[in-house]
């Protein structure tokens, strides 16, 4: 068996907190993530891409269908599936080191045994010298790196990333994209890489990072198309290349109409 995650006819219905209406967020999602692949999920606002990610993370359960992770049904969150949140969700009462350390601490690893790993990760993401700062004292890009190091501390085989670079400025985003690729193992072999599910608004970003792109439609969210990104790795040198631009335009064509619709509907 070669798939890390299997989604079988997954649907999600929830009751809107605003008006008590029944909202079908996702419907009939059938899909498999290959082990070691980098998958991006794009789609207009309200297509349920974050909902999909949070169900694989185990924060919520599908209304219909089932989600399998490494052959077992997902019943809740687990340290083998690391999650990165859009606005970081760092613990404000813990320092950088304290945040990075949280995973090993939560799994009951002794302080002496986790110290070296934490220190190495802090250096890996370039936060050396900031160990004792609190998240509020860091810039957006540094918080993002801290969140990344925190996720990596558990050595997860799967990275679930919910618009992790949406809140940083453009220059920082470019730098972090390159770092993300490097940490994932852009130059390495598939078998050694973690499986990634990367939810994003950025179509260029999806093309730059991913092996495949799932394009979701809205109301209810369903898979509209799966786009293969057949570009060689490492990807960083291909940034702004014509091939990438062509793929991005192709993906944008799939989304445009519904994205326009989403803007007007959201203001209602």
């Amino acid at each position, binding site marked *: 068996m070669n798939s890390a995650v299997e989604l079988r006819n997954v649907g999600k219905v929830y009751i809107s907190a605003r008006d008590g209406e029944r909202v079908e967020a996702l419907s009939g999602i059938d899909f498999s993530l290959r082990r070691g692949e980098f998958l991006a999920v794009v789609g207009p606002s309200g297509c349920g891409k974050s909902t999909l990610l949070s169900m694989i993370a*185990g*924060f919520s359960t599908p209304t219909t269908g089932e989600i399998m992770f490494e052959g077992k049904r997902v019943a809740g969150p*687990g340290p083998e599936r690391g999650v990165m*949140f859009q606005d970081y*969700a760092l613990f404000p*009462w813990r320092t950088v080191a304290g945040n990075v350390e949280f995973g090993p*601490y*939560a799994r009951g690893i002794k302080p002496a045994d986790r110290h070296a790993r934490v220190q190495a990760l802090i250096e890996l993401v370039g936060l050396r010298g900031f160990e004792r700062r*609190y998240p509020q004292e860091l810039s957006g890009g540094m918080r993002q790196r801290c969140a990344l190091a925190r996720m990596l501390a558990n050595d997860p085989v799967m990275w679930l990333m919910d618009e992790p670079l949406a809140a940083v400025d453009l220059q920082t985003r470019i730098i972090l994209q390159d770092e993300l690729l490097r940490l994932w193992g852009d130059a390495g072999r598939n078998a050694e890489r973690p499986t990634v599910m990367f939810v994003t608004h950025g179509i260029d970003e999806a093309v730059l990072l991913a092996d495949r792109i799932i394009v979701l439609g809205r109301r209810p969210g369903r898979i509209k198309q799966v786009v293969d990104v057949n570009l060689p790795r490492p990807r960083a040198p291909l940034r702004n290349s014509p091939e990438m631009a062509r793929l991005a335009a192709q993906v944008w064509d799939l989304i445009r109409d519904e994205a326009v619709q989403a803007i007007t509907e959201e203001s209602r």
Partner: protein
Amino acid sequence: MNLLRVQQPLDVHLRWLLPLSTLVILLASWEAAVRATHTQGLVPLPSGIYRSGTNLTLDGVIFEAMSGSLQRVLIGFSIGALAGIPLGLAIGTIPVLNRSLRMVLDTLRSIAPIAWIPMAILWLGVRGNAALFVVAYAAVFPFVVNASQAAQLIDRRLVDAARALGAGRWVVIRSVLVPGCMPMIFTGARIALSFAWASIIAAELAIGIKIAGQGRSVAGIGQLMVETLYVKRDVDALVFYMLVIGLVSLLIDTGLRRVQQRLLPWNAK
């Protein structure tokens, strides 16, 4: 018009001189007015307050009474914290518990703590436990209210983040819920302490009336004031006690804020 002009900061010396001279003028005219109308004994004199204060400080009476009261405040406050924080956190996290207990708690909370004094005396007697009961009663609700609200407002994503990092129920409670609620619990603690301090004075005043001077009740600042009123009839001392009560609550609040800055450095702004 002052409003229309560019505001210059006051001269450094002037900044201290102005309030100080207000105080001196106020005290001097107060003293003069009392002496002119011969109302000493009914209206306190600034010079008399100073004299009483010095005497009561030198012979240690004020310290003895104050330590009695403070002791009860601290014990009552601790009981309030130990009962109120876990209860509040539980209510804030378990909706069923919230729904079941909220109405009863809100009703109890609406009863002024000092209204319990007669019942407390009936059940616990006048030896100090009645006052302690009233103080604990006053202190528990700010803890319950603030802890439960903090727990309800806790950022769900932080809980999700912790669970995704491998945290089980107890780690989530200990390392996310409790630290996340600490700032609001501290605010509750400051309210609880000021309630407790206000209640101990009221309770001691009420309990002290019948038995002051007979040496039966445990002496606190409230009892001392009752004795001063009925037995000694010393208005200067009464005002001195009032000033001390104000000073102590100011010190307590400042102290708690310091503790908060020390314990929650991430929350200090």
